[in-house]
């Protein structure tokens, strides 16, 4: 490449950046919700099986693919695929590595803004809405514009300053400032203080939750011990563990949780790993990043959310609240914080921690497209950031405007945030396991490794992970895709959202076509570059 190649300044920096990318709202809201829905303790069995058969192998694959491409001068997934598999089509398969993070960013930043807005409102005392949950539901509806399209902009009678827009603008600017500063001075430096701060915030909330005791003496069963039991006990309602494990839906949800939680299939890990030096360790770094994510999810998220909800709402309330992540996070938990002693402070800390988790994830979503603009079109950092800023501002504007029932957000989340991620992860695993192969793949993972990765992991990557992934994907698609496909025909906003995503896809395909022309001229593939 013509420009000076960026690299990570420190090893702990890249580990924290990948961990930050993986740790998000799902760790603190989705995971506890799923575990509570599927008999708590029993859920952990398919969860850990999926971690070993799906999560860790795919994470190693992404790290290895990224460093492999980076050693040959490429940081974007189209470029990485081009050198991994000598085929004219291969760079175009990498289009999902651009579409997925960019399209997710368009709605994820909106959710990030809710977290910041809630943290601010708790900190300033303007979130004290009493103990009636309907007040919080009404506030959330108004705040994010769920009642009518355009209401988040104040077009339907809402006030601009009362809406989520100021937070959204702040988040947008902060994201692009961090990205503009570059890899080591921006992303790495930010993650180095944000991740410890996030964990410190989580510990503050955890201590408060575990010391709640029995807040209402009139309801002695609603105590912390029973709250933990609700999350972790085996065998609910007289069911044996085996009966719980016979629920195929639980296996599906556990695999999905691992998959989304580790942020595999986004193309982000490969992009981050491409900035490593050719002999930097990836085996231990990948395992450390995954462990960091699992710690946040199981040890922090698993001990905070459900026990806190249980001591104030009881079993029935928790089951009802955990049916929807937004319900749990933005309607139920705020009410709970306002009910507990020191709740205003704890609420501010909790939503600030969610904001940090979201911010460390959203900045990672911008880097893959920046990488392509820089190496594919030869743009400088400023121009790349400006182009991407314009595209994402249009997309976020679309999602925020069509906010009624969060229909645009939901559509983006389904087609890109779920379907495309499964497809991209499958492509990556198949490319690594079959195009690069067992021998070269294992050699690539082991190069510079500080822990030994057993060779059988390569056979898991080659045979087990793709089958596991496809099985989960097909089952999940079978259960959910029908209703989403029907909505395209019946709801013009859904059709418009799908059309918008299609336009971005075409844009990135054109960008890749132009990049390939440039690469063929400047960096023709030789046996060496593709070896």
């Amino acid at each position, binding site marked *: 490449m013509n420009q000076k190649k960026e690299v990570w300044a420190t090893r702990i920096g890249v*580990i924290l950046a990948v961990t930050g990318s993986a740790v998000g709202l799902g760790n603190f809201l989705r995971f506890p919700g799923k575990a509570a829905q599927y008999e708590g303790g029993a859920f*952990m069995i398919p969860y*850990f099986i999926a971690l070993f058969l799906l999560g860790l192998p795919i994470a190693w694959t992404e790290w290895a693919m990224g460093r492999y491409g980076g050693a040959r001068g490429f940081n974007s997934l189209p470029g990485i695929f081009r050198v991994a598999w000598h085929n004219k089509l291969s760079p175009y398969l990498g289009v999902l590595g651009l579409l997925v993070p960019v399209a997710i960013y368009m709605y994820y930043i909106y959710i990030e803004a809710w977290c910041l807005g809630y943290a601010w409102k708790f900190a300033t005392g303007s979130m004290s809405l009493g103990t009636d949950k309907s007040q919080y539901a009404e506030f959330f509806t108004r705040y994010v514009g769920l009642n009518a399209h355009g209401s988040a902009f104040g077009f339907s009678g809402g006030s601009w300053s009362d809406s989520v827009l100021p937070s959204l603008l702040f988040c947008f600017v902060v994201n692009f400032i961090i990205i503009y500063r570059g890899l080591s001075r921006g992303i790495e430096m930010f993650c180095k203080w944000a991740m410890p701060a996030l964990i410190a915030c989580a510990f503050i909330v955890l201590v408060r939750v575990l010391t709640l005791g029995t807040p209402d003496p009139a309801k002695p069963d609603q105590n912390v011990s029973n709250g*933990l039991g609700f999350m*972790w006990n*085996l065998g609910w309602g007289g069911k044996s563990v085996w009966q719980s494990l016979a629920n195929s839906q639980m296996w599906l949800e556990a695999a999905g949780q691992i998959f989304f939680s580790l942020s595999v299939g986004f193309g982000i890990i490969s992009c981050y790993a491409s900035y490593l030096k050719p002999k930097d360790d990836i085996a231990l770094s990948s395992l*450390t990043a995954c462990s960091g994510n699992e*710690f946040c999810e199981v*040890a922090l998220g698993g001990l905070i959310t459900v026990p806190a909800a249980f001591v104030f709402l009881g079993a029935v309330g928790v089951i009802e609240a955990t049916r929807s992540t937004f319900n749990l996070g933005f309607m139920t938990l705020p009410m709970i914080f306002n009910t507990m002693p020191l709740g205003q402070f704890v609420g501010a800390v909790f939503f600030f921690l969610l904001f940090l988790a979201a911010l460390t994830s959203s900045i990672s979503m911008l880097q893959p497209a920046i990488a392509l603009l820089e190496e594919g079109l030869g743009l400088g950092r400023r121009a790349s950031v400006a182009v991407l800023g314009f595209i994402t501002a249009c997309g976020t504007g679309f999602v925020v405007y069509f906010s009624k029932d969060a229909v645009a957000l939901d559509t983006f989340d389904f087609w890109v945030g779920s379907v495309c991620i499964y497809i991209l992860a499958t492509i990556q695993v198949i490319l690594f396991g079959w195009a690069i192969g067992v021998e070269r793949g294992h050699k690539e993972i082991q190069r510079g490794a500080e822990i030994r990765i057993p060779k059988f992991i390569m056979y898991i990557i080659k045979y087990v992970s793709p089958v596991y992934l496809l099985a989960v994907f097909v089952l999940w698609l079978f259960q959910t895709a029908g209703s989403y496909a029907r909505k395209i025909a019946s709801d013009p906003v859904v059709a418009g959202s799908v059309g918008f995503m299609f336009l971005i896809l075409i844009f990135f395909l054109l960008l890749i076509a132009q990049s390939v022309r440039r690469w063929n001229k400047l960096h023709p593939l030789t046996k*060496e570059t593709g070896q």
Partner: protein
Amino acid sequence: MTLSGWVVMILSVGFVTSMLVWCIYLVMKEPEATERLHAQDEIDTRDTE
């Protein structure tokens, strides 16, 4: 909370915490890559000729 609940919680939380601590220990034990001196035979010139 039942005994099985305690066991599952301690095993799950203990496992992820131990794994993280072990990984961080290994990462911190090694000096930064930028500080390492590579021997001649470790340097990959990417020259296949």
